[in-house]
């Protein structure tokens, strides 16, 4: 495929879409499917057939539209009316009155002016919920593979890296390592073969950003990886994804097949010297396999256990060769950066954390769902405006970011800008983007215990502090909760948390105590209130 052919296919798809009077888009990402989106789509299709409207109405299945708590979600184009809680009855009404009748149904319509939509800035999610994720043409019509074409024809690999570096993109997996720097290390590293790996082993409880991107716009990730392959000199890519994401896997398989057929993956991509293949590697769902060294072992078919770093994967990765490992969202940012230039990207967010970040809003919040905001936006704006606040009658208590590796941010820090450094200052981390909101009914010792139990379950068992230390921390938390702990136990708890944090082998263990440490920092009283005095010698007056 040449650039001209790419443009031609994009134009013909745009033309095709424009010929429909109405297009009915239904979210069939995992969230909406679980509340009945499949039936809704079936209804639309049956209606089109019954009324013989195949030439006027197109029924499209898309990825996530964002307002996951109110699914199933339907969008009618071209007037862009969005509907929530669409059951069969609603679907019937929408089709009758809006699709055929041309008059939007107010009862189910979502107000497009609500802050949930107006406060978001969509880069990674720009196509998510707007295109058919199973058609490469839909992606092309929305600008897909344009960046790859430009990189291959107009830019040297070094220039691609320079562009990513100037954009200031930082790893979206959580740690925030500068992406351009990582790419240049892999480019410079010596090795007969190099690899590009996409970490799609999203495992934090309450996080579904990567899944949504892969379900809604898989080609964007493939394109990002191919550009990374070109920039670093790798010819083989792997997407490591958990088996718990069957729909994402299905859509990725379809996308890879389509891209190969179109000559956008495989040998001599777009008639250039670049050969780049992408294969899927399905993980069994162990949380630790999201840790890059464990992930690589798992790709190699071995038990997913981390090893000490250095050497880092960029020097010695898969089969001892230089390997680039980035997260789904990081790759999803690459194409827009190449397409629109680094200056455009760097202008969003904050100087140290440019760009946007996708968050999965969950917990005690009105608008549960998937959002994308510029870095540095105050937490208050995410919670109160985009999220719509906590359920009626309750007040905001804390937001948990970074999952089992992160911490709780209390109400007094609501005005904190959400970026890598600010979150670290209050003892949490950006993480991959899970944000769990807790209200006045949540007990923070329970929250800490929940996350610690998760870490105990997910510890691989290789190093002693994580294997045995997290277990002891969980036991102490249980002792505190059951009202049997003394101040000595609390002191031991704190000591163990610091010890596990400092001595564990990999990031999982090093960050496992964070939920305890951060709740202790901001909600210590909830712990202390549960303590009992220890037994002491009581001298008896004769």
């Amino acid at each position, binding site marked *: 495929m040449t650039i001209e052919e790419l443009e031609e296919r994009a134009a013909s798809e745009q033309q095709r879409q424009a010929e429909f009077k109405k297009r009915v888009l239904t979210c069939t990402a995992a969230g909406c499917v679980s509340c009945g989106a499949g039936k809704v789509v079936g209804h639309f299709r049956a209606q089109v057939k019954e009324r013989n409207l195949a030439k006027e109405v197109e029924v499209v299945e898309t990825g996530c539209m964002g307002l996951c708590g109110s699914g199933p979600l339907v969008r009618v184009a071209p007037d862009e009316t969005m509907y929530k809680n669409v059951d069969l009855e609603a679907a019937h009404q929408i089709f009758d009155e809006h699709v055929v009748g041309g008059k939007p149904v107010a009862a189910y319509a979502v107000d497009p002016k609500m802050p949930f939509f107006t406060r978001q800035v969509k880069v990674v999610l720009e196509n998510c919920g707007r295109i058919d994720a199973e058609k490469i043409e839909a992606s092309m019509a929305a600008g897909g593979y344009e960046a790859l074409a430009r990189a291959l024809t107009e830019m040297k690999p070094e220039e691609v890296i320079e562009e990513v570096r100037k954009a200031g993109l930082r790893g979206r997996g959580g740690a925030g390592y500068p992406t351009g720097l990582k790419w240049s290390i892999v480019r410079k590293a010596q090795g007969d073969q190099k690899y590009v790996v996409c970490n799609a082993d999203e495992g934090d409880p309450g996080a579904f950003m990567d899944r949504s991107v892969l379900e809604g716009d898989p080609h964007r990730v493939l394109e990002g990886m191919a550009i990374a392959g070109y920039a670093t000199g790798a010819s083989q890519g792997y997407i490591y994804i958990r088996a718990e994401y069957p729909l994402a896997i299905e859509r990725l398989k379809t996308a890879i097949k389509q891209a190969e057929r179109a000559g956008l993956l495989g040998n001599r991509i777009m008639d250039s010297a670049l050969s780049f293949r992408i294969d899927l590697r399905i993980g069994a769902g162990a949380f630790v396999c999201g840790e890059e060294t464990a992930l690589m072992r798992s790709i190699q078919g071995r038990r997913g256990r981390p090893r000490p770093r250095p050497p880092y994967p960029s020097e010695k990765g898969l089969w001892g060769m230089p390997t680039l490992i980035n997260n789904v969202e990081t790759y999803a940012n690459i194409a827009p950066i190449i397409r629109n230039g680094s200056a455009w990207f760097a202008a969003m967010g904050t100087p140290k954390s440019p760009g946007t970040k996708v968050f999965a809003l969950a917990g005690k919040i009105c608008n549960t769902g998937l959002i994308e905001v510029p870095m540095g936006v105050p937490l208050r704006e995410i919670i109160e405006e985009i999220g719509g606040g906590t359920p009626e009658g309750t007040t905001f208590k804390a937001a948990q970011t970074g999952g089992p590796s992160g911490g709780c941010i209390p109400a007094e820090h609501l005005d904190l800008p959400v970026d890598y450094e600010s979150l670290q200052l209050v003892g949490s981390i950006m993480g991959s983007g899970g944000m769990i909101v807790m209200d006045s009914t949540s007990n923070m010792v329970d929250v800490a215990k929940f996350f610690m139990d998760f870490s105990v379950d997910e510890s691989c068992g290789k190093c002693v502090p994580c294997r045995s230390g997290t277990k002891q921390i969980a036991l102490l938390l249980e002792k505190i909760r059951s009202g049997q702990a003394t101040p*000595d136990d609390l002191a031991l708890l704190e000591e163990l948390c610091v010890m596990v944090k400092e001595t564990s082998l990999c990031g999982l263990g090093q960050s496992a105590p964070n939920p305890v440490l951060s709740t202790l920092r901001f909600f210590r009283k909830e712990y202390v209130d549960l303590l009992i005095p*220890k*037994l*002491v*010698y*009581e*001298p*008896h007056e*004769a």
Partner: protein
Amino acid sequence: MAATPKPRVATVWLGGCSGCHMSFLDLDERLIELADRMDLVFTPIADVKTYPANVDVVLVEGAVSTEEHLHMAQLIRKRTRFVVSFGDCATTGNVTALRNRFSVDELLRRSYHELAPGGPATPSKIISPLTLKARPLHEVIPVDAFLHGCPPTADQIWFAVDNLLQGKIPELPNVYLRYG
């Protein structure tokens, strides 16, 4: 000048084999010196029924294995200035804790039914109910010092008691640190 009262010392036998107490008796002639330096106010070797108040030092042998041990441990803690875990069972659970891999039901069935020569009968009144697990003393009450070994040697006991009688906690970790 009025003589200062001698330190009040006790020894207690919880879930252990009494080997630690035997080792205590191995102090031999040093026992005579000890008799001059302290008052032994409670011990399985003497027939005292209740644990007195204001004990200065107690050596506790054995793991906490029954409801009675638990009760006793708490009583000891309230009435004693220095509580010493005496031997490996009190310190780690040791041999007493070997039973922890079985449920209490399994233990009683094996001991009082399968291996009972005089006819099977589960004790219900005279013997205190077993706790779910046998646990080291310091998991139940705060402990001030530890004497290791199965059993601790006489020299080790002498070192600790000598220090304690001078009002000192044996230097931690003590020079006789030795498990097993």
